[in-house]
């Protein structure tokens, strides 16, 4: 059963501005699916979330959550969704416990009835229960925000960049928590700028300039990568980047961690060894290493952008 059905949503913030979101396609998210949206800053992720969370109304198109229209049934929608904005937005002058109690009572619930859902997350916050929410560390704030958006046991959970500014171990914990929630049948939509996290999603949508460039499972996106990809290193990495861009067989070149990744133009029959020799002889690079590699999600993303 489809939990979320999106029908070419569009939202523009000003008449002279390009639309922040203009999907032009239909997307459905199944019940209990962990759906990722990845894209650079300004891709329209937050605007899309705000539309789905009934905070802004779309200019065109429509969407339903669990069969409820986000415009017509917005009041009912609000009872079944949890939304965690990218920015910390709880009451920083209230304590951890008071925040949780308040958001539970906002939905007409108490903490005990859904405590099982948040137990794993909240146990880490328990020692700080009486601390003001504003005085928590970044990771703890995120945990509290997640608890507050889960306390009414929503059917659909929206998380807008939940791992931005959070340390790696907290990030891993969060994804483990999401996996547990997913097992309980919750539909989760999460946006992120970290490609390694997107691997944990059932399906990801790559978003740019308000549009979904592709929507598929991470493995299928990777297997659909149809170019030859090489990883290149030498002693002078910065000069190497510029030199690679002058090589005719190279289509696209970008830094990837401590190496450079290049894609080759279709039909270019150059082997990694040939390229290595060319770089050493013509550009006098030393300690050149060129290897043919398999694409990751990030490579797919970098190469999608230009379409």
């Amino acid at each position: 059963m489809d939990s979320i059905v999106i029908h070419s949503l569009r939202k523009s913030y000003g008449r002279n501005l390009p639309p922040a979101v203009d999907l032009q396609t239909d997307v459905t998210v199944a019940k209990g699916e962990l759906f990722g949206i990845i894209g650079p800053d300004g891709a329209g992720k937050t605007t899309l979330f705000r539309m789905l969370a009934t905070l802004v109304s779309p200019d065109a198109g429509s969407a339903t959550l669990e069969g409820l229209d986000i415009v017509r049934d917005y009041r009912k929608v609000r009872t079944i969704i949890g939304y965690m904005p990218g920015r910390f937005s709880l009451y920083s002058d209230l304590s951890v416990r008071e925040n949780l109690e308040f958001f539970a009572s906002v939905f007409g619930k108490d903490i005990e009835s859904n405590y099982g859902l948040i137990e794993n997350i909240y146990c880490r916050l328990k020692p700080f229960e009486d601390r003001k929410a504003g005085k928590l560390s970044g990771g703890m704030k995120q945990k509290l925000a997640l608890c507050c958006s889960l306390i009414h046991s929503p059917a659909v959970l929206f998380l807008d960049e939940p791992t931005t500014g959070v340390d790696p171990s907290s990030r891993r914990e969060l994804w483990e928590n999401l996996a547990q929630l997913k097992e309980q049948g919750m539909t989760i939509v999460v946006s992120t700028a970290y490609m390694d996290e997107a691997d944990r999603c059932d399906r990801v949508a790559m978003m740019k300039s308000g549009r979904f460039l592709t929507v598929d499972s991470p493995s299928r996106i990777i297997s659909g990568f149809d170019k030859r990809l090489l990883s290149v290193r030498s002693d002078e990495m910065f000069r190497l980047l510029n030199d690679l861009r002058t090589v005719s067989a190279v289509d696209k070149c970008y830094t990837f961690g401590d190496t450079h990744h290049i894609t080759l133009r279709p039909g270019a029959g150059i082997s990694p060894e040939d390229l290595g020799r060319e770089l050493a002889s013509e550009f006098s690079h030393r300690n050149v290493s060129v290897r043919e590699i398999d694409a990751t999600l990030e490579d797919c993303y970098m190469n999608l952008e230009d379409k």
Partner: protein
Amino acid sequence: MSSFGYLFIKEMKQFFANPFMPVVLILLPLLLMLVVPLAANMEVRDVRLAIVDRDRSDMSVQLIDRISRSGYFVFASYDDTYDKAIHELSKGNADIILEIPAGMEKAVGRGENAEIFIAANAVNSTKGTMGGGYLSSIVSEFSSDLSVQGGQGEGMPLRIVPQYRYNPHLDYRLFMVPALMIVVIILIGGFFPTMSIVSEKENGTIEQINVSPVRKRDFILSKVVFYGLLGIFAFTISILIAHFVYGLASNGGMLEIYVSAMIFLVFMGGFGLVISNYSETLLQAVFLMLFFVLIFMLMSGIFTPVSSMETWSQYVTYILPTRYFVNILRAVCLKGSHFADMSFDFIMLSVFAVFINVFAIVTYKKQN
């Protein structure tokens, strides 16, 4: 619990979470009501007088003696010529010049008129006009006494005996205190709810409320009611001070005062909402609020009477609801008026309260 209930409790927790705000709530009326009326005094005393006595007669000495006995004046200089005196005035050593013409005593003895000249420095216009007024009344009283003594009954047949009703000693404090009570209620009832709503906007917490099933009506009502109660609390402090320290509202009228204060608080709450609807940041809201509060304070007769304003601005005061609240408070505090005496003011105040709240709700809905 109803949604209004827990929102109200949340407001309360937030307000008391920061000890600064409860302290402000108590200190604001306390300081305003106790310190300002003592400091701000429109009564004019110690007017510095430069005397140019060209007569140097018994009569001129009597006149000067009477002026000194009035207690309003201190003698700054005693000059022979008007030029010297005006020099003192221009240096700022004197406020008023009194020139007694040569041969005054003889002229009066012959039954002729003598002209006494008064020049006042009106840079400080209150001191100039009030001091000049005092001085001329002393001089005219002196001259009428002379006519009686001289048996010339026709010299001053009519005497004006002013009687100041409701504020017999023209005590400026009695004028100030109701004004300050209004200032207290404007500050608490206007700024607090506005700042609270806009800071929820700034912190993004309003979004968390908006994605929940809480109705906007309950959200706003919880703030207006909570801060309205705080306004009543601060207002009560100022009434107690007005009553027990300054002896105001001794004729009763508490019901009138509280009913008008509540209507006015409803107005200020709605007004604050309109301001917060149009502001995205706290800075914007506070500045906008301050702008209107200043207009309310300076143009609706709180500190300067409406009747002494320019005609066009007197018409403007009709669209300022503070004007009606000021009227009611002064009438009750000084005259002990009742509802029936002030029905127009009550009706107008209520009309404004209803209008602004309707406007607030309409503009709030447009936001989304």
